């Protein structure tokens, strides 16, 4: 089977757009990606759409009404925070399988603000605050505390993740925030769920991102190879059984499964990766994922952030976009926004935050429940 390429990407500046519809945000990114590839909607053979909050609302079809209703197959994908990456992967799979040769993937979300309250049971009493907590901040606090338990990781080390990503976002005009956020400001912000303060929680923003994927034959035929990015691996996993899994949501084993599969598919080692956009929904999560993705040895994530190895200019820059912590986290868009970022670096078009000589990049998202998607992209 021939390789699949990303030949166009688009992403809107993340923010809050109360006056715009979901489909209008999605359409803007879709048109940007088509323009980037020099293609039109008439060249697309299918649309894969990632979204969470309106998963039953036929979001992909609504986007088609704003970019041209050509009658192509539309697939709406909902997989928690991995929805965008799942849509991207479905698009990849259809080309890989030879069913299509040119397809569009779009991720889009309009978010509420503050703590995202999950609906309680339809009939009964919510156990929140009675049988512990199931808020997102608390689940990812548990994830960090488990790392502290094993390795003595400190609240300060977790907080440094947020300082780093906020710094990176000052270089990204499409990020929600461009504000330096020093360590004392991060650590003294309102405590949400120990050790994560408010500034260690991702920003709820509206956003969209899109990508045009095509087969090698088509990319060559269209003369798009000079800016094309090869998809070296596309992996998706669900949480495997583990002893604590039923009481504590798993974000670790699911990531390790997907990462292992991705490295195998690509035939590369973690050391070969030049930059990573990973799922820093909370500062605690980023640190633990360094080990889950094999970016450092077991127990070394704290040392890695202390040594600055994951900042721009470091050994393996992580979340140079600003990450979910500062660029923002529109759930269904995030997976494709990560692809947008890595593609920009591999093309050498990332401006002030460019990772020098980037040849191989990784994207990672993990959705609660759990779903993990990992992609490895390469300059063609």
């Amino acid at each position, binding site marked *: 089977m021939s390789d699949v390429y990303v030949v166009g990407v688009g992403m809107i500046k993340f923010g809050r757009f109360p006056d715009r519809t979901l489909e209008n945000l999605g359409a803007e990114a879709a048109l940007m990606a088509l323009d980037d590839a020099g293609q039109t909607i008439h060249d697309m053979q299918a649309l894969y759409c990632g979204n969470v909050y309106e998963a039953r609302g036929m979001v992909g079809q609504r986007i088609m009404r704003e970019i041209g209703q050509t009658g192509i197959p539309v697939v709406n994908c909902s997989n928690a925070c991995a929805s965008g990456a799942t849509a991207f992967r479905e698009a990849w799979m259809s080309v890989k399988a030879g069913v299509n040769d040119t397809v569009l993937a779009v991720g889009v979300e309009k978010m509420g603000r503050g*703590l995202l*309250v999950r609906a309680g049971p339809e*009939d*009964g*009493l*919510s*156990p*929140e*605050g*009675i*049988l*512990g*907590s199931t*808020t997102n*901040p*608390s689940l990812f*606090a*548990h994830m960090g*505390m*488990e790392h502290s*338990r094993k390795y003595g990781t400190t609240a300060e080390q977790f907080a440094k993740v947020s300082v780093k990503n906020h710094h990176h976002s000052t270089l990204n005009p499409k990020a929600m925030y461009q504000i330096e956020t020093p360590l004392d400001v991060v650590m003294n912000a*309102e*405590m*949400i*769920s*120990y050790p994560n303060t408010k500034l260690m929680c991702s920003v709820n923003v509206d956003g969209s991102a899109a990508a045009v994927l095509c087969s090698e034959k088509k990319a060559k035929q269209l003369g798009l190879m000079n800016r094309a990015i090869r998809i070296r691996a596309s992996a998706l996993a669900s949480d495997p*059984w583990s*002893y*604590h899994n*039923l*009481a*504590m949501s798993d974000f670790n084993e699911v990531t390790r499964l997907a990462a292992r599969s991705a490295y195998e598919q690509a035939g590369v080692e973690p050391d070969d990766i030049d930059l990573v956009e990973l799922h820093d929904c909370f500062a605690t999560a980023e640190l633990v994922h360094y080990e889950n993705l094999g970016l450092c040895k077991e127990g070394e994530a704290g040392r890695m952030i202390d040594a600055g190895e994951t900042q721009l200019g470091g050994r393996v820059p992580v979340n140079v976009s600003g990450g979910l912590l500062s660029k923002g986290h529109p759930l269904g868009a995030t997976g494709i926004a990560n692809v947008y970022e890595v593609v920009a670096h591999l093309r050498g078009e990332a401006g002030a935050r460019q990772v020098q000589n980037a040849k191989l990049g990784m994207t990672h998202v993990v959705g609660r429940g759990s779903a993990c998607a990992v992609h490895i992209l390469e300059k063609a």
Partner: protein
Amino acid sequence: MSVSDGLLPIVPYLVSGQDGDFYLQGVRCDSCQQITVGVCNVCPACGERGAMREIRLKNTGKLYNYTIVYRSNPGVRTPFVSAIVDLDGGGTVKGNLASEPENVRFDMPVKLAFEKLKEIDAKGRHYYGYYFTQN
């Protein structure tokens, strides 16, 4: 606390026994021996069917993990300690730990306590629940 006349369990795996006592219900898989909280017919650990034997989970355990929750859903009183407890003999459950945050330590021994809850549901029904205390 006596037999829970008219009270509902907040979660299905919390059981009011014949003798007026309370316990957490689990199942042990005859095939892989793993313990799962609650009742199920297929083992989530190994996929074996029809090998799940109902057991009473132990009321004591050790604190595996925790966080202190300062911001929760509207109306939920904070702060509280959200605890993940490894029960002696197997099984892991989440619950509140009734302890001052500064006294919480990994691996501290804890035990289950049961109570009638103050909270009622939208239909005005009352519930019983559980929490952990230092043992």
